[in-house]
C-alpha cells in the first residue's frame, strides 16, 4: 500500500514541470506581462525594460558606473536618508491616527502609544528614525564633499542638498515639540528663543527698536518673528498646533518636492559621480 503511494507520488513529481519552466510560464503569462510590460529581467533587453517601464525604478538610469554602485564609494547614505524619509512618512501617518495636537491630550496620547496602543512601537521607529536621518544626511553630505562630487556640473544640486539639510533639521525640530513633555517644551523654548534676536525682525534683535513710526514701535514682543513662530509669547498650545501642521503638512511637502528635484538633477547632471 505504502509502496504504491510512494510510487504514485514519484510518478507525479516526475511529470511536474521544473522551477525554471514555472518561472518562464509565469513571466511570459498574460498577468505578468500586463503588470510589468516585459518578461523576466534576465536578458539585457528585459533589464533595460525593467528600469524604463517602471515608475519607481525609472528614477535610475539604465546603466550606471561600476565604481558608483560600490558601497565603499557611496556609503549608501543618500539612499538611506530617502529610505528613512519614507519610513518616517509611513510611521508618521500611523501616529496621526492616535495623536491629538492639543495641550490636553498630546502627552497622554503619547503615553498611550507607549503603554497600550497595538504596535505603539511605531513611535520608537519614528523617533529613532528621525535621529538616524539627521545623521544619515550629514554623512551623505560628508561623502559628497570628500569625493568632490559637488564640482561642475553638480554645483546646483549641492545647493539643493544644503536646503534639504535645513529641511531635515526643521522636520526633526518641529517634531521634537509634539510629545509635549518637558524635553520637548524646553528644547523648543531654547531653540525658538533665538528668533527673538533676529536682526530687525525680532524684538530683542539689533535694529528692531529703530523700526518705528512717530515713536510707536512696530516690532515688539507681540508682533515679531518669535511671536509669529510660536503663536504667542511662550511655547503654548498655539505653538503645538503650528508645529504640528508644519511637521505633518508643510515641511514634508517642501521636502518631497525638493527631493524630487534633487534626484532628477542627479540624473540630469550626469548620474552618480565618478572620475573623468
Amino acid at each position, binding site marked *: 500500500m505504502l509502496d504504491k503511494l510512494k510510487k504514485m507520488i514519484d510518478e507525479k513529481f516526475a511529470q511536474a514541470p521544473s522551477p525554471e519552466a514555472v518561472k518562464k510560464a509565469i513571466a511570459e503569462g498574460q498577468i505578468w506581462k500586463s503588470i510589468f510590460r516585459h518578461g523576466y529581467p534576465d536578458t539585457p533587453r528585459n533589464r533595460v525594460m*525593467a528600469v524604463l517601464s517602471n515608475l519607481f525604478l525609472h528614477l535610475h538610469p539604465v546603466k550606471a558606473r561600476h565604481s558608483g554602485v560600490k558601497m565603499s564609494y557611496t556609503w549608501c547614505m543618500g*539612499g538611506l536618508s530617502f*529610505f528613512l524619509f519614507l519610513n518616517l512618512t509611513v510611521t508618521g501617518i500611523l501616529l496621526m491616527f492616535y495623536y491629538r495636537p492639543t495641550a490636553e491630550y498630546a502627552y497622554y496620547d503619547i503615553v498611550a502609544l*507607549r503603554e497600550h496602543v497595538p504596535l505603539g*512601537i511605531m513611535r520608537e521607529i519614528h523617533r529613532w528614525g528621525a535621529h538616524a536621518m539627521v545623521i544619515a544626511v550629514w554623512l551623505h553630505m560628508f561623502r559628497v564633499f*570628500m*569625493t568632490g*562630487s559637488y564640482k561642475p556640473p553638480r554645483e546646483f544640486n549641492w545647493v539643493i542638498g544644503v536646503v534639504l*539639510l535645513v529641511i531635515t533639521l526643521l522636520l526633526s525640530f518641529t517634531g521634537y515639540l509634539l510629545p509635549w513633555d518637558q524635553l520637548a517644551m524646553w528644547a523648543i523654548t531654547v531653540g525658538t528663543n533665538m528668533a527673538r534676536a533676529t536682526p530687525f525682525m525680532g524684538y530683542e534683535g539689533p535694529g528692531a527698536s529703530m523700526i518705528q513710526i512717530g515713536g510707536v514701535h512696530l516690532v515688539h514682543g507681540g508682533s515679531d518673528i518669535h511671536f509669529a513662530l510660536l503663536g504667542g509669547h511662550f511655547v503654548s498650545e498655539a505653538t503645538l498646533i503650528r508645529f504640528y501642521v508644519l511637521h505633518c503638512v508643510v515641511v514634508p511637502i517642501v521636502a518631497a518636492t525638493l527631493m524630487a528635484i534633487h534626484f532628477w538633477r542627479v540624473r540630469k547632471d550626469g548620474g552618480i559621480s565618478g*572620475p573623468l
Partner: protein
Amino acid sequence: MHYILDAIDFVLQPWSYFLFSVIAFWAMIKYRETWTEPAFAVKLLWGAIGAIVFSMVYSDHFREIASLPDNVPIFLMVFSVGFFTWLSFRQGVLNDRRIAQGQPPIEKETSDKKVYVWPDLVYVEFIATIVGGIVLLVWSLCLHAPLEQAATPAWTPNPSKAPWYFLGLQEMLVYYDPWLAGVVYPTLILVGLMAIPYIDKNPKGAGYYTFNERKLAIIPFLFGFFILWVTLIFLGTFMRGPGWNFFGPYENWDPHKVVVLNNVNLSEYIWVRILGIGLPANFLIREMWGFLAVGAYLVALPPLLTKKIPLCQELLEKLGVARYGVLMFLFLSMASLPIKMVLRWLINLKYVIAIPEIFFNI
C-alpha cells in the same frame, strides 16, 4: 580609580578641550598615512570603545548622562562620523599613493565599465533597505523613545538644552549673543556651504577620494565639521550642566556651582582700565574701539593677508576678486568663533562691541 577621573576632570576645561581637539585634528591630517592603516584604525576603535566602557563603569555620573535615551544618537554620531572619516581618508590615502606613482585613482579602473542598474544597483538598494529596516526595528524594540514628564511652563529644567544637533549653536551662545550665534552664524554656515561649489575652482578630485589634490578645500571644511560642530555637540551633551556651566565629563552636575563672572567689555578695558577716564556717555564713542577692531578685522585684514601670505596671493589670482572676496569673508566669519573663544579664555573679553541699548553686541 577616582584619581584618574578627577585628573581628567581637572585637565578638561573649555580651552583645553578645544586645544586637544585642534591637536587631534592636526594629527589626523598630518599622520593620515599611519592611522588609516586598518590595523592601527582597529586599535583606535578599541581605544574609543575602551574609553567609553571605562567611563561607564567607573563614573556613575557619566553613565547616567550617557544612558539618557536622547543622548543615544550622540554615540551613533560619534562612531559613524569616526568610521566614515576613516573610510574616506583610507581611500584618499590609497588614491594619493597611486596618483604619486602616475596611476589613476582606484575608482577610475571601473568607472568606464557600466553595469545594468537592474540587478546590480537595485539589489544593493534592496539589501540596504532590509538591513536599515532591521537595524531600526531592533533599535526601536530595545530602547524606548525618550519621554519625560508632561510639559509644564511652571518648571524649567536646568540645564535646558536644545535638540542635540543644535548643541553646537547653543555652545556658541557662550561666546556670542543670540542674534549672532542663533541667527547670523547659522545663516552664514548655510550660505557658506552653498557657496562651496562656486568658490572651489579646483578641477581635480571630482568623483574620487583624494586628500593631496584638495587640501585647501578639505582642511577648512573638516575643521568646521569636526571642531566647530561635532566636538561642540559632544561638549554640549556631556560637559554642560546646570546654568550651562562647564563640568568635567565625570564631575557631578552641582546646580550650586559658583563660577566667577568676570568678563569685561573691550570698551571698559580701554576707556577705564587703560585710559582711566571712564566710559563716554554716547555709545558710538564708547564703542569706537570695538567698531575699529571689527572694521579692521573685516576690511583691513583681508588686503593685509593677501599681501603677506603667498598662498592668499595665489588664491586671489586663481579665483578672481569676487570669489576670493567671498571666500575671505566666509573664512574670517568662521575664524571669528575660535578667535572670540581664545580672547575669552585669555583676557576674559565679554564683548568687542557692546551696545545693549539696541541689542547690538559682538
